[in-house]
């Protein structure tokens, strides 16, 4: 679903490349955590996937589209295949919850009967079916992020990108949001989530990609936030030396990951 082939990104005034020589493949229906300290290139990577930036070198393929090479007029098509969730929710304050979700469908010209049936479904999925008429500032942060997830998911994208979706939320609420993203994942969506939340990563045990200073230093299935065996790879190692795996504990079903809410579709 996502292919990164020797991807580099150099900003005009950057001292060092934001990304250098990153190679990774994310299959359809995978859940991937993208971890690394601030400034390690996580956001740049997500921006490349959305074609908000173009790579300086290498190839980026998302949902079968060669992201750097498609003409500008096909970019909307790429973005319809990719949903996005952000730390700061990015809801429209003058629209109700339902209108915020409907907006994503309206502006891509979906017919009214589709909007009318799909929006309540999406709100029920995120557990906000009864808040459809509220405005974003009447909701808690967690609820606002649920609306943002509903908006990202309502167009049924093949990929969902989440850039620190729990960055503004308390631990309990973060768990709820995590559960929701898991639901979206289990509906068949490929999810890439950039995060600093070690507890979530450790609890979910999904695949982990770690970036440091623009270099992919770890690609570990069912990984933890911190490297399972410390200092397996020196920080300066080329990415090819990386994939040494720890044997993870058998994956257990997180109680919050399989919520009874909503159809898993």
């Amino acid at each position: 679903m996502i292919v990164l082939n020797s991807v580099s990104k150099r900003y005009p005034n950057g001292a060092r490349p934001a990304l250098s020589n990153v190679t990774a493949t994310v299959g359809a229906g995978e859940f991937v955590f993208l971890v690394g300290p601030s400034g390690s290139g996580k956001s740049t990577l997500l921006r490349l996937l959305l074609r908000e930036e173009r790579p300086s070198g290498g190839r980026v393929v998302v949902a079968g589209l060669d992201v750097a090479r498609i003409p500008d007029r096909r970019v909307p098509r790429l973005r319809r295949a990719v949903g996005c969730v952000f730390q700061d929710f990015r809801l429209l304050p003058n629209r109700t919850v339902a209108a915020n979700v409907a907006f994503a469908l309206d502006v891509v010209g979906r017919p009214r009967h589709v909007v009318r049936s799909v929006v309540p479904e999406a709100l029920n999925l995120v557990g906000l079916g009864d808040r459809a008429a509220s405005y974003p500032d009447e909701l808690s942060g967690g609820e606002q992020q649920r609306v943002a997830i509903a908006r990202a998911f309502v167009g049924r994208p093949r990929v969902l990108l989440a850039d620190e979706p729990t960055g503004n939320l308390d631990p309990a609420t973060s768990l709820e949001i995590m559960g929701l993203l898991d639901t979206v994942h289990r509906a068949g969506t490929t999810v890439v989530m950039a995060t600093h939340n070690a507890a979530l990563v450790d609890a979910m045990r999904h695949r982990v990609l770690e970036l440091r200073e623009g270099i992919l230093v770890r690609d570990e299935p069912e990984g933890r936030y911190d490297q399972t065996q410390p200092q397996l790879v020196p920080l300066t190692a080329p990415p090819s030396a990386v994939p040494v795996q720890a044997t993870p504990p058998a994956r257990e079903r997180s109680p919050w990951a399989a919520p009874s809410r909503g159809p898993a579709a």
Partner: protein
Amino acid sequence: MGGALARTGRLMRPGPLASLLWTGLRRNLAMTAAVIVTVTLSLAMLGAGLLLRAQVHTIDQYLLGQLEVVVDLTDDITPAQRSALEDEMRRDPAVVSVRYESKQHVFDRFRHDFRGSPDVLAGVGPDDLPAALRLTLADPRQSRDVVVGYTGLDGVEAVRDQRALLDPLYRFLDAFTIGAFTLAAVQALASFALIYTMIRISAHGRRRETAIMKLVGASNGTIRAPFMLESAVAGLVGGLLAGGALVAAKVFLVDGEFSRQTAFPLFGWPAVWQSAAAVVAAGVLAAAAMASIALRRHLRV
């Protein structure tokens, strides 16, 4: 899902688009009003210019059929010279018809024209007036070449252009037409400056919306449409107001005042409707085009 991928560049339904447009107009009310005022002034000037041109045309239609170029012949002209002259005129593409008037004929006409002034008639006999060739031109406004071309030929005493008598009137109308178009252009520049600013403010006020539209894959056309429509609506309102001003000018100024003060025919309602339609169309199209230029600068998609 595959269906969603296959669709590119679908535009919004009218309902949600209208709602975006309406919130934009409401948020920008003062700015939109300013745009409407300048657009109205500009278009009213444009319309006034068009009506002045219609007036010139009306006078032309009324008079041109009657305007002739008169070539006075010398008394000593030989029949051979005259027929050579007439042949040349008949070959001239600018000349539609040539009519010979003998001295007697000219005298009869003179007597008829001045029948009310016996003292003028008293001193003039049939021999005092020259025989003439009267030319009807294909386009009486292009008489200069004809006048220059036949002046000084053998047997020609003088060439007189009747239209020259109307020159002051035409110069007056032309000056007002140019003045109106110039004012329209200046106002159009002011309108552009305002629309440019309106788009900038509007793009800033809507940056969250446009960011989300980009993110969820709205086409560039969809993202730009509310801005273009906002400007086009201002252009439409300005056009309608200017068109209304033209109709009012026709009713109160032209029909109410001028028609009682002049013998010349004045332009009719078809000219008003044509100018009004042109003004409305120009308003909508120019405002949308100006918005599109401003969007290039203020809205990166």
